[in-house]
């Protein structure tokens, strides 16, 4: 296993900036974690105070030989009449002490090695990593057995030390990976630049960010140590005159407890080990969910994309323009439920005509990508379409509402009628399958009758269409350049000749030259094949060039829509105007780039009035109280701004 693979396998603790503190700690407060903490707490209390409360001597012999549990001996007695509850209570104390001591020592070791290796790097890193890897591969129990076999005394502390010597490497390894990734982050770089001492950086900048992982590996080591100690004791390799859970089992086994029917002697210590292991694992589940937010359980799986109830479907006007291919009506998308729900898309209407390029522009967080996911019904929980309709017109047939399709209908509709190209080409391609396989499986799914020769021919055809050499069909994604990957995604989208192509920031990650080539290619293909395009981007100037019509989104709403030329000539919403001034134009007169002051609104805060008002240089008093509606100003041009609406006459000042 390579270090990189390990680093991949270890999720790094990077809760998104948007996650509120409350949701960040949600994993730690889950039912599982609480159960685990309570269970562990009970053991700690039992170990600390149990022997003081249940004041029987665990080693004292008596005449109550092999008694089953009773009022006098709650857990029964051993073959020599010793009280088993007393043994288990002292055993809890000893086993926990061994576990915690070993875990503390192992954690200290792994912190020393992991932090140093990750922070210092270079040869130190190589050596320390090799050391950790070697110890990780050597099986721990046989090594512990050999070590313990030579020990002159095998007291609990010695055993704990021996266990920690074999149990530190896993923690060291993940800490190194985590330190490496944190070290490259800005706040650490900043601290280094200001000349802070490395020890201070490690203690105050890096370590706090590794708390979750340290805790997780600490708990894990406790379980490992308790199990190992029990194994050693069972083998007679630790001091079995000290009562530990493993020691009790040793005596029970050597006196044939089970065979003589004395289950009460044998069962409790093992059960204690299992339950404490489970308790710590439950706490670790919570830590995992904290470290890796994707693990937080969401009720709906992805394939159960929620279907809108039939009854809510609104009848469409019977005879519509026949050139419409997709119509979004009053679409509402929320993240979360109830009063905390964030309205990411808030009543959007859009019409896409056949062969047309509809541009959707807006800053990040404007709801434009959510809209793309909603149209394709790919939203993941907590995102959810609350109401509205998305009608698709098959050629010459009655419209169907995408939101009300059954799972089978939806699968048949996807890709064959509507395909999507995502922003990140690297992440959109399956890293372990060749392009050929990834393109052909769409054909297999939608045209089950085709032969593999036909599929291969089609793959080569679409690849040639987007300018990819046919011999790249058997390449894996990592073998392609960024531009080639994006072309491959476009080829993949065209493989079934869809009517609609949704492009979600398809070229943002590419350099300007490649970006331009790919855009030209898409537009040429559109001419040739006649599909309609929904083009989503933050780059309004790009849309002005390629789109027929443009819708500008802000805070989940369309605030202006019109033909590209008209928007360019006379943007009417102050926000559209600002967007246009944020990007240099490729053609036409030079303008001063001014941008838009402020940041996109926090959609969790619901205020009356125009959502753009706080950033708007032309806001009037009414803007803070009245939400402007999207109204037509001229034919085909609609604006949601009080300044442009009825009583407004200062239009010219824009």
């Amino acid at each position: 296993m390579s270090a990189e693979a390990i680093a991949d396998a270890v999720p790094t603790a990077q809760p998104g900036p948007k996650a509120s503190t409350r949701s960040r700690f949600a994993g730690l407060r889950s039912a599982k974690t609480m159960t685990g903490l309570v269970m562990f707490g009970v053991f700690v209390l039992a170990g600390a105070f149990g022997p003081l409360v249940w004041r029987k001597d665990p080693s004292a012999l008596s005449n109550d030989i092999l008694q089953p549990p009773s009022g006098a001996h709650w857990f029964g007695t051993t073959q020599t009449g010793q009280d088993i509850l007393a043994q288990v209570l002292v055993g809890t104390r000893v086993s926990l002490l061994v576990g915690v001591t070993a875990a503390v020592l192992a954690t200290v070791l792994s912190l020393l090695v992991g932090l140093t290796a990750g922070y210092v790097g270079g040869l130190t890193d190589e050596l320390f990593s090799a050391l950790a890897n070697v110890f990780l591969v050597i099986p721990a129990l046989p090594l512990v057995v050999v070590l313990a076999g030579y020990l002159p005394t095998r007291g609990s502390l010695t055993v704990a030390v021996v266990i920690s010597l074999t149990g530190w490497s896993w923690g060291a390894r993940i800490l190194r990976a985590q330190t490496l990734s944190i070290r490259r982050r800005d706040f650490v770089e900043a601290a280094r630049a200001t000349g802070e001492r490395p020890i201070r950086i490690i203690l105050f900048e890096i370590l706090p960010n590794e708390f979750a992982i340290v805790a997780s590996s600490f708990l894990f080591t406790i379980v490992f140590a308790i199990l190992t100690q029990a194994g050693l004791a069972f083998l007679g390799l630790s001091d079995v005159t000290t009562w530990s859970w493993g020691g009790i089992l040793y005596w029970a086994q050597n006196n044939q407890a089970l065979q003589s029917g004395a289950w009460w002697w044998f069962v409790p210590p093992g059960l204690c080990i299992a339950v404490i292991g489970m308790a710590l694992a439950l706490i670790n589940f919570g830590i995992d969910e904290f470290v890796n937010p994707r693990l937080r359980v969401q009720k709906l799986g992805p394939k159960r994309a929620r279907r809108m109830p039939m009854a809510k479907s609104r009848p469409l006007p019977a005879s519509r323009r026949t050139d419409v291919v997709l119509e979004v009506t009053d679409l509402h998308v929320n993240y979360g439920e109830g009063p905390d729900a964030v309205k990411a898309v808030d009543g959007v209407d859009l019409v896409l005509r056949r062969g047309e390029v509809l541009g959707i522009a807006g800053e990040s967080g404007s709801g434009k990508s959510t809209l793309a996911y909603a149209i394709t019904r790919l939203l993941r929980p907590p995102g959810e379409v609350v109401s509205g309709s998305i009608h698709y017109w098959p050629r010459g047939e009655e419209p169907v509402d995408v939101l009300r399709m059954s799972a089978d209908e939806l699968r048949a509709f996807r890709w064959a009628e509507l395909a999507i190209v995502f922003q990140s080409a690297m992440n959109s391609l399956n890293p372990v399958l060749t392009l050929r396989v990834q393109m052909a499986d769409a054909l297999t799914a939608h045209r089950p009758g085709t032969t593999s020769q036909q599929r291969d021919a089609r793959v080569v055809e679409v690849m040639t269409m987007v300018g990819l050499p046919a011999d790249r069909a058997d390449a894996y994604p990592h073998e392609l350049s960024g531009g080639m990957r994006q072309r491959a995604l476009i080829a993949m989208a065209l493989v079934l000749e869809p009517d609609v192509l949704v492009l979600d920031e398809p070229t943002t990650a590419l350099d300007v030259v490649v970006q331009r080539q790919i855009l030209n290619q898409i537009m040429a293909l559109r001419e040739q094949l006649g599909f309609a395009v929904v083009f989503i981007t933050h780059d309004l100037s790009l849309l002005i060039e390629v789109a027929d019509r443009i819708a500008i989104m802000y805070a989940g709403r369309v605030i202006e829509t019109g033909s590209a030329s008209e928007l360019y000539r006379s943007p009417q919403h102050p926000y559209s105007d600002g967007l246009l001034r944020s990007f240099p134009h490729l053609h036409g007169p030079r303008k001063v780039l001014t941008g838009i002051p402020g940041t996109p609104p926090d959609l969790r805060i619901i205020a009356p009035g125009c959502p753009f008002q706080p950033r708007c240089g032309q806001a009037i008093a009414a803007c803070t109280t009245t939400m402007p509606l999207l109204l037509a100003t001229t034919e085909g041009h609609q604006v949601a701004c009080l300044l442009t609406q009825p009583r407004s006459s200062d239009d010219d000042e824009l």
Partner: protein
Amino acid sequence: MRYLARRFAFYLITAWAALTLNFLIPRLMPGDPAQALLSRFRGRLDPRATEALTAMFGLNNESMWSQYRTYLADLGKGDFGLSFTFFPTPVGTVIMDSLWWTIVLVGIATVVSFVVGTLLGIVAGWKRGSRWDQLLPITTFFSSIPYFWFGLIVLFVLSGELRLFPLSGGYSSWLSVDFSWAFLSSAFKHAILPGLTIVIASIAGWLIPMRNMMVTTMSDDYVVLAEAKGLAPRRVMLNYAARNAILPSVATFTMSLGFVVGGAVLTEIVFGYPGIGNNLYQAVINEDFPLMQGIFLIITFVVLLANFLADLVYVWLDPRTRVEA
């Protein structure tokens, strides 16, 4: 294959580290264990054994370096010394007699556990938030149970009380070890309970990471895109999500295997299985240091080999490791 070459070099280094540890442990341990042993056994031990021990633990006043060279040279010839539990059988022979039992039992149990645990993890991840999530606490409970304790209870109930399975051993003692039907079926019957113990106790180690990786992978763009392509859910689950989610499982095979091997050693002791774990137990209770150390080395080597096999699988699964650079 640069990747495999690098891995192979790493295993060579690890093997050397294990050899050296094995050499150093008895020499650096406090209280001079070998000397203590010799005085305890004085008069009861065959002179040849005493001599072998003296050489083995460096009590003959040679320099550390020359001892180390002799040690490596002996091991190179496959000479692990003489066992004094089974005196005068060489340690190598004792180990070889039992090694295959362990490899077959633990090997099959590990493969079964990996396959079943991974499949359950795939489904549990795919259907997260459903009833399948109950698998997590249940299997975690079983994985926290000490193997030997669980094995003894299983043995007591199923073999002792219900008499469904043999009580101990690897085959019925009146049979000779060959490839006859009688022997194989007897061996199978004896292997079921220890095998089952290993599978049940180790399954969570594969299931839980797989489930968590599935959940993580499912929000990756390529899985969303596979869904957008209208592929059948089974194909999205297996070829897109699981196919990628399994990579860390294979990559962390090392650690999981270490636990299984440790547990299997104890399982064998409980079931009186004629494998290497039982030998280790014999060695420990008889303070048979040469045998103990030989077993540690052999277990380590077999684990390294198993890891190399896992690396081969990894290369086969992940095209990115095949980059020639």
